[in-house]
């Protein structure tokens, strides 16, 4: 009996909080007779555990932003989910983002919150900040108005904001304060899962450090999971437990942060890491030849092959699957040879 209970709690513990399976999301456009299909997210599967920070990296227009938006259920036509599923697990209750929309809407902010790209403009310009907290969080907390206000104020103080900001309008606050405020807003309900789309882009370096420390601190205190996107590899190095590398709409490599940085398995990851500046390193950085592929007409086989220094004939015709290797997963026909090269 006791064993069964233990067993169950163990299985809950082991069960990932987010499970993305075979996710395909395409921009489908048909206007004035021009039909276009852009495969922004192409067959991505990943899982995220409790209390884990997962970073998604990739260059601009690699589809990483589309991926995180699709996971958050934040996509609007013409971007549509074509295949696959995104399922959260909140306290043993499974929630499919695209099949259970009303339940999903009710779960937002209580279990799942979102920090948006360009969070400078996420606050309603014509209303005071306190209304945003009230609109987003009040119904989930089960507190009286007075208690709620006190809770919000103490929460803001903990993240280093004067509670008086609640009585101001967004345009009266500085960029750094607004960014802090949106993180405060995203964490006030202490959700199990936080999705962050480029949380530090467009901030200056000092504020960036500040915000990263803030996110990490909040996450550790609440034991929640975070998935975030940024092209900035230093941010990944600073806070991510695991990293996924996206190239041309596909996940090409995934693994614990340290391993990915030290022993990249995919040639593209190897290039990303090699192009990072290091103190004392005076070697010339080599730019990758060619351009990121056009997602409306991607190359056949492995999408990286036209730019890959290790490409062989097989890479041009057959798409490598994302398979477990060492401590992570990688999608490359010549995965073993990157370290050697």
């Amino acid at each position: 009996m006791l064993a069964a209970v233990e067993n169950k709690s163990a299985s809950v513990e082991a069960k990932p909080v987010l499970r993305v399976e075979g996710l395909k999301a395409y921009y489908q456009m048909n206007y004035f007779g021009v039909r276009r299909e852009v495969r922004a997210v192409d067959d991505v599967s990943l899982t995220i555990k409790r209390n884990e920070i997962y970073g998604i990296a990739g260059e601009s227009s690699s589809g990483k932003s589309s991926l995180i938006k699709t996971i958050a259920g934040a996509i609007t036509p013409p971007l549509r989910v074509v295949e696959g599923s995104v399922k959260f697990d909140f306290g043993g209750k499974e929630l499919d983002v695209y099949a259970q929309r009303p339940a999903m809407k009710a779960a937002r902010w209580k279990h799942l919150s979102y920090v948006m790209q360009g969070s400078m403009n996420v606050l309603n310009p014509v209303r005071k900040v306190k209304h945003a907290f009230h609109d987003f969080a009040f119904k989930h907390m089960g507190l009286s108005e007075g208690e709620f206000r006190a809770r919000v104020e103490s929460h803001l103080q903990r993240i280093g904001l004067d509670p008086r900001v609640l009585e101001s309008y967004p345009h009266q606050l500085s960029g750094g304060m607004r960014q802090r405020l949106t993180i405060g807003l995203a964490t006030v309900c202490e959700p199990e899962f936080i999705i962050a789309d480029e949380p530090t882009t467009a901030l200056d370096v000092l504020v960036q450090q500040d915000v990263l420390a803030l996110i990490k601190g909040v996450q550790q205190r609440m034991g929640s999971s975070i998935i975030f996107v940024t092209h900035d590899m230093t941010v990944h190095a600073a806070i991510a437990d695991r990293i996924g590398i996206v190239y041309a709409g596909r996940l090409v490599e995934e693994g614990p942060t340290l391993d990915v940085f030290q022993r990249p398995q995919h040639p593209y990851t190897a290039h990303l890491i090699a192009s990072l500046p290091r103190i004392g390193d005076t070697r010339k950085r080599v730019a990758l030849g060619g351009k990121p592929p056009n997602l409306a007409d991607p190359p056949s086989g492995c999408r990286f092959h036209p730019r890959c220094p290790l490409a062989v004939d097989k890479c041009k015709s057959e798409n490598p699957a994302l398979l477990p290797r060492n401590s992570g997963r990688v999608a490359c026909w010549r995965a073993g040879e990157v370290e050697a090269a």
Partner: protein
Amino acid sequence: MDGFAKYLVRRFFQFFLVIFLGVSLAFLITNLSPVDPVEQSVSLMTSFGATDPRSVELMRSALEELYGLQGTMLDQYLSFWGRVLRGDFGPSLSAFPTPVMSLIMGALPWTIGLLTLALIITWSLGNLLGALAGYYRSNVLLKLSGAAVMALHPVPAYIIGLVLLLAFGFIWPVLPISGGAQMNLQPGFTFEYIRSLILHGTLPALTLVLVGIGSWFISMRSLVSNIVTDDHVVYAELGGVNSSKIFSQYVARNALLPQLTGLALSLGNVFGGAVITEFLFNYPGVGRLLIQGIYRGDYSLVLGVTTMSIISVAVAVFIIDLLYPLIDPRVRLG
């Protein structure tokens, strides 16, 4: 100087500039025209009967003095300003010797009443429908009502008014089609009189509403369909904020700001529509006064009504400009 004070100073400046340029324009048009108003008035009067040359001469100089047409152009201009500031446009020629100003003051309440009522209905209904149509894009009922108001929008006021007049005055005669109230009723706060006011105002007001509603609908719908993609709206949706609140507080409230500016900008045109509508329904406002003045060749009346219209529209625009900061904290708090 903070943003709010700067805003007020700008609006004040704009207000005085509109009046200055408008009044000067009215003066220039009348003075640069090849037609001499005095000769015109004289020939109008002499055409009614025999007049001896001496009394014509007398009349001519009296009219010149009346119209302020003596002295150099600059003298005339300054004396025109003097008369505008005193509110004295001389006696009306067609309703001699009633001063033009008292004719205008008698007609102004009718126009203000009709226009204010019609504008409030038009603006709120057009914006409400437009906002709903922009937010709930797939709703069939909203699409249909949108198509209807949009189809009416380009049709000029006179045509819409004429069709309404034919429909409710001749084909299905249920509403009065002429005048501001029943002739034999004593004006006052009696049920009979107010009922008559409302009935007489219905068709002119309906005309103005049908003419105006489409453009509010169109601009509001496009504003809203842009605002729904704004970060703060998308974010509220991802935050699970309920959709009626998103609609009212996040979408509509932001979209109303440019619409209020639009209201101020459109007043001049709306007034033009009212002129035509009043004439069509024989409504006793300044519009009818203006057109009657033109038909009767009443120089001082036409000039007076035009000048007063320019000033009244400028005042109304100014009032709206002063209301704007109340709903936009970015202007109020700098």
